[in-house]
């Protein structure tokens, strides 16, 4: 019997016997095997090739397309619908992204914290719909035109119609006849009270535009049967909120949206259970966070029911947890709150929809191109790491280039506020220790790894948007750190000898690396960290040890390297630097000096510190395992949450994460 047949047989057997916990994954492997899934290590990319850009031009343009300005992005980047997941077990566990914390907000919370008048381009007028019979039924005090059928298409049209009405009523959409050459356009002052019948004559000619300086977004259902690309999982949000112009291209071009474009999600359903609709929103929010490093929080709307019994729920997801409103019927005051939300979603500036404006984003691709840290601007070379975990640090790592074309590593993360020492402090403490070291060794060595470039506490806390909601989850703060040097992942070792050297460097106090005729000495490794700086690292893993290499601009001289160094003068070395030889496409054979460097001091602390109770985030030798712990909650937990919500209890709770 073939293996597949065996599995099918087992599956049949199980379905009869009834052990529902064992699922068969799409690839035909029984879920129990998941515990023997191999971990996924970082790919062996040679980031250090960036040091010699001319020499490794071919490699760099292949690996880091964004650096090569001449190629149009479209031809180099062919994006699969779903990427391979960084951790095998993550694939199965991502199915249950259940929040650790849920807080219940009210429409007051939305009015005061999420879309207050000062966040909107113009203050929201609660009476704006009263004179619009096309939209609002004054006797019943609810929307008069809400679709009878709760389909994506109907709801999309209704939402966009509402956006349009709100825009006109607030004076955000105005005719601008001079913008268009159509000569018969007469300048009509008032547009609110105009007779519809008159306009019918030249319908299609009368165009109005959103006034300058106001965002213009649109709801689109293109994604309901076409999963947006770029994320790790295939998910089809019913309706997405995207920039109106992009929306035009998506709809008219029959094109596929990217997750990078999605600004908010709307889920609609007639009768799906409330909990599962929320679950859908959480999952899709996770994909937004994964693909959008600039995302501070994600907004979702759930609409459920039919006819007059439609209820909605406003969901805000961020790195600390979830805030949502109670499910309320769309009528009376709540309908006006709903209109405020729609108004905010379509016209508010990006910052209030959860976008970090210190990152510059390419309009069409949605990729981050520049990141600001303090007053420095860094160009993104490659987005090398992102965490799949929705609730937690949410680390995004980039290789960036500064104005002087030097390369650094930029790390963007949400850290617990009471986490103890910040990485910025740790790194400066290490460099201070070195500066104040009077020993001749220290004076001689001087140089230090890791190198700290700039860091910034962005001053964005997960607590601010929670306002007066009680029982907030542990506060998280947005922090950005730029460090160096850029190293290759540990998996990129070129021989066993090199690997052992790297391990040794990580333990040793001092190490050195040769570059051309110079010998660079520096302090690195755990011994220095432990004994001199009195700091423990606390998070050593495959991801946090890198191989630092210093490739030369040209192959080493035919003669022995010693001879070269013996007669090195200032001019000859300058000349040597000017000459470069392009590396062959099959790679370099020559030996390149290496050293191992320990990076990522997020969890570093003084020797002898007890781990803070609130920061018992589970860490493992691999980041992927952390995912397991945070997303370990089963549907049972959600059911519990739902119960809490329906009984109106304030409920956020840190689950007993296996061992906190």
């Amino acid at each position, binding site marked *: 019997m073939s293996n597949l047949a065996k599995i099918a047989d087992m599956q049949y057997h199980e379905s009869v016997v009834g052990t529902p916990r064992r699922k068969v994954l799409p690839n035909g492997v029984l879920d129990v095997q998941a515990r*023997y*899934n*191999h*971990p996924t*290590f970082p790919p062996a990319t040679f980031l250090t090739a960036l040091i010699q850009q001319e020499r490794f031009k071919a490699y760099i343009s292949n690996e880091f397309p964004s650096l090569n300005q001449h190629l149009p*992005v*479209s*031809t*180099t980047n*062919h994006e699969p619908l779903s990427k391979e997941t960084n951790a*095998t077990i993550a694939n199965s566990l991502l199915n249950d992204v259940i929040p650790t914390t849920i807080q219940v907000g009210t429409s007051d919370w939305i009015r005061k914290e999420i879309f207050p008048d000062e966040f909107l381009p113009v203050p929201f007028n609660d009476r704006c719909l009263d004179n619009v019979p*096309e*939209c609002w039924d004054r006797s019943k005090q609810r929307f008069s035109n809400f679709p009878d059928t709760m389909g994506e298409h109907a709801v999309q*049209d209704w939402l966009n119609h509402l956006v349009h009405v709100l*825009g006109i009523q607030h004076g955000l959409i105005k*005719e601008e006849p001079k913008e268009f050459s159509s000569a018969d356009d007469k300048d009509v002052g008032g*547009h*609110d009270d*105009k007779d*519809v019948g008159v*306009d019918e004559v030249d319908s299609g000619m*009368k*165009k109005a*535009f*959103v006034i300058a300086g106001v965002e213009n977004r649109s709801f689109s259902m293109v994604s309901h049967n076409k999963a947006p*690309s770029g994320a790790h999982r295939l998910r089809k949000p019913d309706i997405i909120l995207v920039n109106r*112009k992009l929306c035009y291209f998506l709809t*008219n*071009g029959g094109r*596929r949206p990217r997750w990078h474009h999605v600004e908010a999600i709307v889920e609609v359903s007639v009768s799906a259970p409330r909990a599962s609709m929320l679950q859908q929103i959480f999952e899709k929010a996770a994909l937004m966070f994964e693909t959008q490093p600039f995302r501070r929080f994600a907004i979702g709307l759930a609409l459920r029911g039919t006819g007059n019994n439609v209820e909605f729920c406003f969901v805000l997801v961020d790195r600390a947890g979830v805030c949502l409103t109670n499910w309320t019927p769309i009528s009376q005051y709540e309908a006006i709150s709903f209109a405020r939300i729609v108004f905010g979603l379509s016209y508010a500036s990006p910052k209030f929809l959860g976008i970090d404006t210190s990152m510059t984003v390419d309009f069409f*691709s949605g990729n981050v191109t520049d990141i600001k840290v303090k007053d420095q601007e860094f160009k993104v070379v490659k987005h090398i790491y992102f965490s799949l975990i929705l609730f937690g640090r949410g680390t995004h790592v980039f290789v960036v280039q500064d104005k002087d074309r030097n390369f650094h590593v930029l790390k963007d993360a949400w850290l617990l506020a009471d986490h103890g020492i910040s990485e910025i402090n740790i790194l400066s403490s290490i460099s201070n220790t070195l500066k104040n070291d009077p020993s001749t060794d220290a004076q001689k060595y001087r140089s230090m790894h890791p190198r700290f470039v700039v860091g910034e506490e962005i001053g964005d806390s997960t607590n601010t948007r929670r306002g007066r909601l009680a029982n907030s989850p542990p506060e998280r703060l947005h922090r950005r750190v730029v460090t160096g040097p850029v190293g290759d992942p540990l*998996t990129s*070792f*070129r021989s*066993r000898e090199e*690997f*052992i*050297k790297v*391990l*040794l460097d990580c*333990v040793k*106090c001092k190490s050195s690396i040769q570059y051309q005729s110079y010998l660079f000495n520096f302090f690195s490794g*755990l011994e220095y960290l432990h004994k001199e700086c009195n700091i423990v*690292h*606390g998070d*050593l*893993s*495959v991801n946090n*040890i890198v191989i630092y290499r210093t490739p030369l601009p040209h192959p080493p001289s035919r003669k022995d390297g010693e001879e070269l160094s013996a007669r090195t003068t200032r001019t000859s070395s300058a000349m040597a630097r000017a000459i470069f030889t392009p590396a062959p496409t*099959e*790679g370099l*054979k020559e030996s390149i000096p290496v050293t191992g460097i320990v990076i990522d001091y997020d969890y570093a*602390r003084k020797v002898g510190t*007890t*781990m803070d109770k609130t920061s*018992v985030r*589970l860490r*493992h030798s*691999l980041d992927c395992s952390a995912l397991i712990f945070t997303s370990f909650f089963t549907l049972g937990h959600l059911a519990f949450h739902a119960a809490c919500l329906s009984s109106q209890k304030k409920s956020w709770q840190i689950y007993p994460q296996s*061992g906190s």
Partner: protein
Amino acid sequence: MPLASLRKKNRGKYIHSPAHDLESLLYTALGIVTFTTGPCGQIRAPTDHVPLARWYNEIDREQLRKDKIVDLADYEEEIHDHLPDYWKPFSSYLHRLLEATWPGLNPFSESAATHNAFKKVLEEALTDFATNHQETPCNYAQVTVKRSRSPGNEGRYPYKRLRGDVSNTTRLAYPAVIKPLSEWTDPVDVDIVGSGEEVPA
């Protein structure tokens, strides 16, 4: 993560010591040695059965601690036997690192790893591999040819023709007046901008 941090008894009291950093370093080495079969990112076939894989998949910390202890204590059978051939010569040094961390290979005891012990073993390993197990280093920065799209294929991303279509500042029009929903057509759905873009059927 260090065994001590997984221990139930240590909950809330766990103090990460330098020895634990070294212990983590050892796990990192074990991970690389077990799951790579060669230099430059040669990854082991995912179908290989490796006991150590459970370390990365176990959700339950207490169980993880037990798994780790047993695997470490039974080094020969659980770790050495499952090493790929490439790393077999390094096995004896790994064993010594383990001995340095838990004297007598008793993982129930606290980690006793010291920098000097680790350095000594690794330095010996380095000399051994530099002399007895020489290999040609894998090529640095090899350019792997990525799958390219056929030129005629209009890809879905990132809207190849989009760039030149409409400048970033152009705005899309709305109807100038409010109409009932039944008569509503969003100009987004119809091509009212009149850009040169022909709409695929």
